[in-house]
């Protein structure tokens, strides 16, 4: 079992990164690790790029991941995967939602959305796992579970068993959304397992 690790979450304000990183943190706590997580609130929430740093280990001091040391990047949007390249190393795993959200300069036609940004990662030998989290969410019947589908997809890179995650969802998600989120988690996980 990994003794410590760094998981970086990135995306666009409003995509549900906070819940995704919370579930992951609770799963790591349940697995017996010390965990710290850092987020930025305020201005950053208004549709801008957002990130959450999660670090686990026997004893974690710093809440911030050092550049070049993210073991897993969970990106909720394609461009927001590429933006965090300096945090990655050759053995990082990048789980990326294939969704594209136009940044303002692209939406107004001043710039183009770069077409092949994920090649920039694979070209450097980084393992990229592209997941259409929205499709998974649609299949399980609740669009708002795309974030939990991403957690499911990412979970195969952790030693924590899926049962621990399902348990956490039971404890942390409102009853009304519990079952559908568990299905999203399992579908996300199954999708990546099928790719391996």
């Amino acid at each position, binding site marked *: 079992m990994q003794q410590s690790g760094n998981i970086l979450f990135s995306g666009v304000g409003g995509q549900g990164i906070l819940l995704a990183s919370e579930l992951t943190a609770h799963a790591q706590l349940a697995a017996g690790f010390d965990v710290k997580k850092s987020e930025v609130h305020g*201005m950053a929430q208004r*549709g801008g790029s957002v990130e959450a740093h999660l670090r686990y280990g026997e004893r974690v*001091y710093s809440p911030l991941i*050092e550049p070049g040391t993210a073991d897993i990047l969970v990106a909720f949007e394609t461009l927001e995967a590429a933006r965090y390249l300096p945090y990655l190393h050759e053995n990082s795993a990048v789980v990326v939602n294939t969704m594209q959200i136009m940044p303002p300069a692209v939406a107004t036609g001043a710039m183009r959305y770069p077409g092949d940004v994920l090649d920039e990662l694979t070209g450097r030998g980084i393992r990229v796992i592209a997941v259409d989290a929205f499709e998974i969410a649609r299949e399980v019947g609740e669009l708002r579970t795309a974030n939990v589908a991403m957690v499911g997809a990412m979970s195969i890179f952790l030693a924590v068993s899926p049962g621990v995650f399902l348990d956490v969802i039971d404890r942390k998600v409102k009853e009304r959304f519990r079952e559908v989120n568990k299905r999203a988690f399992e579908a996300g996980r199954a999708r990546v397992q099928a790719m391996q």
Partner: protein
Amino acid sequence: MSFDSDNNLWLSGNEAIALGAWEAGVQVASGYPGTPSTEIMGNLARYEGVYAEWAPNEKVGLEVAIGASFAGVRALATMKHVGLNVAADPLFTAAYTGGRGGLVVLTADDPQMHSSQNEQDNRNYAFAAKLPMFEPSDPAEAREMMASAFALSEELDLPVLFRTTTRVAHVKGVVRKGERRQVAAASIEKMPAKFVMLPGNARVRRADLEERMRRARERAETLAENRVEEGSGRRGFITAGTSYNYVKEAFPGAPVLKLGMVWPLPEKMIRAFADSVEELIVVEELDPFLENHIRAMGIDCRGKDLIPGQGELNSYIVRTAIEPESRRELFAPLDLPMRPPNMCAGCPHRGLFYCLSRMKDIFVSGDIGCYTLGFLPPLSAMDSCVCMGASVTVAHGMDKALGREGSGRIVAVLGDSTFMHSGITGLLNAVYNESHATVIILDNRITAMTGHQQNPASGRNIRGEPAHAIDFEQLCHALGVRRVSVVNPHRINETRKVLAEEIGRDETTVIISRAPCVLLPEEVRRKKPLYVTELSNCTGCRACIGLGCPAISWHPLTASEAVARGYREKQKGYAEISAVQCNGCGQCAELCTFEAITRKEAD
């Protein structure tokens, strides 16, 4: 270390501070929102046995807390770093009076300016106001230190400052929980020599403050929060706050003097530690605060000659600053379109700023809130922004400097919460001293920017209970403003007419731009119409694109693509509204002159 959910909680620094304050027996708390401090008061309001409130500004909040302390109970004031500038006046004199119940003043600094207009280091206030200051490194410590801060405040008869930074306030970690302490009974006790700061009394308290701070310096030597962590190697580190975490990661095993109280400093402890190591390095974010005071003791150390004095640190920055050879080869960042924050789809501020962006030759004196995003393209309709409330006063100053030249050209723009915070006195001055500027109050019924806190205009208190809502029109009239107009900023054409008329007038005028924030729960729930693009009617004129609405995107076309879609060959593209993102404000439909945007009622 394993997470035992009977005794442990998973909390953010701010949640831990609320818990710590509650356990310490705080009974009255007042604050004004501001990142990264906001969640403390929001959380504290949910505990039993604490009166918590949103004050209209930080000076008010601190004075409320001082009052509660005078009545004998433990009190807390919370604010972001720049809030302490606003509250500095009561702070400096409260150092003289002290209180009866413990008084803790929390300041949350924002190195790196994630959500702030500057990155001042508020440790300097502890020195300047002559007050003790605690600074935790993580949520667990933040909770524990709250108890120490209240205890020390009562022991020394001094307000105690409590400094956090973003990487404590918004970090989550494992926190132990405890019991609430027995609380004191409030009472009236007249102590004029202590509480009435006229010169005669103040001179006595001034001298007494020196004595109280001398005792604080003594206490610093034995305080559990200041500790030496033994280690090996020639280098020793003095550090505090979140920087401590970075030192522990970058140089595990090195000797560390960790200061939990960053003012006053334990001189003997520092001297002994300095003597025990070959090289002393002070690691701190922002100013060389510890470093300067350690040097002033005549102790040689390194610090800002190595460690950056701007922005946040992390363990990589600390390690490579001290050992440049440990630098790693990193992947270089890619050149990608930026994703700055943007006003939400359906935001009422957008309509108002769109109208301002179309006015030639005006200067928009801006302020701080979600609406500051009106500065960004394509609206680009804000020309200055200094601090809360400055929109009105800066506009007045420009008006006076420009004289006739400025007539009809100076506009101040500020939000409802900002107007309550510090806009009212500026408007009073503008009327009294005959400004010709126009003041626009963006009344979206809430303090939106910091995450929807209630304010004196929103009609509810911190617990969501009904409260008096100030009437802006009446207030402005009472201040002496003769012309107060109200517009609905979603009605762009009408708003433009009113703006042109009122800004052109030769007197102080106020325009209230009133429409609720789209993120308010009742707005989210409201059945809203949907606006849809009739793609066949779109001529590619880009009028709607000029709004910068995140729900509208531009799809460029080549000549042959245009023809294939039945457009003119010259049409460069078309605009499309995303049904998922549209919030039904209708601003774009008002701008479209080709019937390419139509309204669909909610079903």
